[in-house]
């Protein structure tokens, strides 16, 4: 395996996408398939997995130490990135995308590549809808907000029942696990779980399939290497939607 030291990149632009989400644009192109991720090194803090929202950017929600440190950075500051890692979304034919919150980020490269026909986008409230305008220009967009401030009043999952799933060869999904589990339940009910492609979130340390931190039950699949995208039939009867392991490897309920 060839050397993969983190590349130093300079942040050239910071875009405030929503009150809690920012895009960090950097000065190096990372050739990747839609849905692949990089390990982002915030010097002196930590290294965390982030999907590429474009070959030049990551789009980040502030949730803890490393993301807060990123939010404190300015244009001209440097971070490290290694990757791309993981399998990404492999689609053909007609594609439906379902994104919740910052989960729209790994789906954006599919939209940019013109591979998405219909996009169901959900968020807590109207101002948190991520990439709404960019998606609207490239796909049929349907919106849901938990508080009803835009689009359907309720969960994005409910929009899935309003489209004809038979119309789509692939259904690409990323968002909070509760939301993804609900989408999987709909697909399973309709008998098309295998057409769902779900991008999972598990605690990652190495990103290259060695340390075991991101392994899932019951097949021991590594989210960083065998995933992060798994088809729905693989996730049925798995830990998905039930529990995940934390940094120490202890199980935590989802």
């Amino acid at each position, binding site marked *: 395996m060839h050397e993969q030291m983190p590349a130093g990149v300079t942040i050239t632009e910071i875009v405030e996408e929503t009150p809690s989400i920012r895009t960090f644009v950097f000065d190096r192109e990372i050739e990747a398939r839609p849905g692949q991720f990089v*390990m982002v090194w915030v010097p002196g803090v930590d*290294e965390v997995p982030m999907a590429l929202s474009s070959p030049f950017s990551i789009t980040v929600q502030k949730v803890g130490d490393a993301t807060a440190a990123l939010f404190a950075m300015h244009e001209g500051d440097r971070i490290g990135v290694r990757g791309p890692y993981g399998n990404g979304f492999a689609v053909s034919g007609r594609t439906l995308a379902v994104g919740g919150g910052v989960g729209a980020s790994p789906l954006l490269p599919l939209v940019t590549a013109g591979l998405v026909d219909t996009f169901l986008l959900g968020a807590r409230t109207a101002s948190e809808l991520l990439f709404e305008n960019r998606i609207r220009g490239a796909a049929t967009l349907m919106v849901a907000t938990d508080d009803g401030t835009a689009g359907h009043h309720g969960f994005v999952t409910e929009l899935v029942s309003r489209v004809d799933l038979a119309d789509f060869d692939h259904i690409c999904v990323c968002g909070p696990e509760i939301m993804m589990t609900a989408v999987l339940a709909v697909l399973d009910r309709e008998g098309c779980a295998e057409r769902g492609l779900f991008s999972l979130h598990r605690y990652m340390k*190495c990103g290259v*399939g*060695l*340390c075991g931190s991101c392994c899932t*039950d019951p097949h021991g699949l590594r989210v960083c290497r065998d995933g992060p995208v798994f088809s729905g039939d693989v996730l049925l009867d798995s830990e998905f939607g039930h529990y995940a392991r934390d940094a120490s490897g*202890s199980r935590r309920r989802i």
Partner: protein
Amino acid sequence: MVALYPGPVEVGGIRLRNHLLLAAGILGTTGASLARILANGAGGVVTKSIGPSPKEGHPGPCLVVVDGGIINAMGLPNPSAAFVDELASLAGEPVIVSIFGGTPEEFRTVAGWFAGKASGLELNLSCPHAEGYGAAIGSDPALVQECTRAVASLGVPTWVKLTPNVADIAEIGAAAERGGADAIVAVNTVKAMRISTALRRPVLGNRFGGLSGKAIFPVAVRCVYDLYEACSIPIVGCGGVSTADNVVEMMMAGASAVEIGSAVIDDIGIFAAIADDLYSLDGIDAGEIVGCAHA
């Protein structure tokens, strides 16, 4: 190349399906992933090192892939006693639990959780001594002997894994043997670091780490060779093994079996791939080559 006769083997009190084990800390965090490696052809598996209390490990980056190897500073993340649950689905399988502690008492406590629930235990002596001054337990022969005795006296097959970061590994191996070890595993990672020239700082969150992979194979062969001269218990060779010929070379240096870790990065099916090259029905008994390079 020499071909070996296939079939189960017994090494250091533990029955293995073949001579190829998964090394500690590689995909060893969950029962399901250990089961996957066994299904992929490993003769036995060693778990992530488990310690006296849960640990999250060092901040990232924890691992970096470099030319010829991997440098890691995971910081021994582990769920401690909760790991017992991961083993439930592996009853009867060739599973060795790697354990660590800062004192002989801690080693004994952790060993007690797993005695009877696994095929054996492997002591990771590369962690700092709780009452020492940062030096690894594995560099002090008296402590090595004490920690080994604390675990071996429980009556469980006890393997002791040594660090290569010592002046005389044979002296440490002899201490483990005196403590009652059933086998010695050599080696853990070699002290190493890299600096990001772009960010002008050490690349690992912990600054320092340990090198594994192809780059350390010659170091590991030398350690196994030295230990074979000094000890009479079996030696399990570990460090940079990635081909069947490497396995044969380790055996000629004195190893009765090998552990494989970093090579999993290229192929999770590496165990079956090596076994395919290594074993043949017209092959010889491994006993014919173990230590033959000492003649």
